[in-house]
């Protein structure tokens, strides 16, 4: 391959050779620069970023692992707090029935006060407000309606004793009706609600970047 450039023809052969070597050397240099050095530089920058991230992650992991004992204590404390709260009145269905659970809880109190429970009915649960962040295991308000007969004092005492012995039971509905044939005995429809396990929601996945 020959170059047919008039200006080169006027140069001496040694000068032509010199230019040829220079051009070839520069071409090799440029190839080495653009195909070798610059991509390597980009690779180094990428690797630096990766190393920085991994170092940060490793530091975080080491710090987290060093904190294991403390974390165990904190988790244990919160779990104990939850257990105490749940034991104080989060109800679970008795053989699939919240009404039977409610009856089993309040029958002794009814007997103690003289209030006669005729009927127990489970009402639809009511969703409970969610804190932020929301738990995966939700709890709801589970109302149970007790229909019975008793004097006003018996009814009031039944309600008071239930509130005292069931720290999470709340009177959410009441109807006391006077009955003309028996002025001393009233029909009472008393609705107590307890917190109960509700549905379990899936944790929200963070948005992908």
């Amino acid at each position, binding site marked *: 391959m020959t170059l047919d450039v008039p200006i080169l023809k006027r140069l*001496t052969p*040694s*000068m032509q*050779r010199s*230019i040829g*070597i*220079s051009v070839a*050397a*520069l071409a090799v*240099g440029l190839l*080495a*620069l653009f195909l*070798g*050095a610059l991509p*390597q530089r980009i690779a*180094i920058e990428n*690797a630096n970023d990766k*190393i920085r991230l*991994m170092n940060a*992650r*490793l530091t975080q*992991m080491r710090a*987290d*692992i060093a904190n*294991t004992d403390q*974390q165990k204590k904190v988790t244990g404390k*919160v779990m104990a*707090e*939850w257990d105490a*709260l*749940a034991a104080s009145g989060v109800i679970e269905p008795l053989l699939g029935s919240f009404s039977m659970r409610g009856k089993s809880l309040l029958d002794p109190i009814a007997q103690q006060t003289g209030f006669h429970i005729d009927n127990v009915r489970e009402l639809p649960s009511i*969703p*409970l*407000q*969610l*804190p932020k*962040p929301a*738990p*995966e295991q*939700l*709890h709801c308000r589970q*109302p149970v309606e007790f229909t019975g007969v008793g004097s006003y*004092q018996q009814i*009031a*005492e039944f*309600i*008071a004793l239930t*509130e*005292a012995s069931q*720290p*999470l039971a*709340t*009177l*959410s*509905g*009441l*109807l*006391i*009706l006077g009955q003309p044939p028996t002025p001393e005995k009233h029909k009472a429809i008393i609705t107590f609600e307890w*917190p109960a396990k509700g549905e379990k929601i899936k944790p929200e996945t963070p948005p992908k970047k």
Partner: protein
Amino acid sequence: MRPPLHLDLLKEDERRSSSPIRLRVMMPLTALFLTTCVLVWWGLLFLRVHGQNQLVEELQQAVTSFTPSHTAVLELRAQEQEYHAMVHQLTLYRNSRNLFGQALSNLAEHVTENIQFTEMRIPPPSPPTVDPTRPSSGPTNTFELVALRIAGRTGGERPSEAVNTLLAALRTPAFTNLFRTAVIPKGAFRQDIARNPANHETLLFEITCDCVPRRFQ
């Protein structure tokens, strides 16, 4: 004075440059030097990349070795957050409790002989408001109104005084921790003419007590 004599000793190929350093020598040398520099730089960068790759591998191994312990800590933390959120939700519920037992027991002491209650009612809670676009975010209302409605009849001497006394009693500190207001709605104190039109002595009354709202906060 005679003009100086100029002798031209330059060869023809040396005539183009005034520099004593020959271009045909320096040009390839410079090009080769630059190329060598680039190649050396490339080599150094290559070595650095190699070193960094080794470091990345070491870090990756370290991360892998720490992962089981770290996962255990993260699980503990997730458990803590879950239980904390559940406690928080039940605390919202517990804070909303209104205790009626004591107030209902106390009420009997303030009912005079010429007053007879015919009905006491606490209406059940209305369904909570939920954002239809985000039903999973739960109820949006943070409080719930609660009211106690007492209906009764009175008669005998000074029946209105007896009802007023009862109303005044509901506004005393024995009840104000539960009842914010106690009022007789307009037209709710009236003669009992529905049952017996001739009976003008028996009066019917209703008292509405607005209770402290249940605050789920």
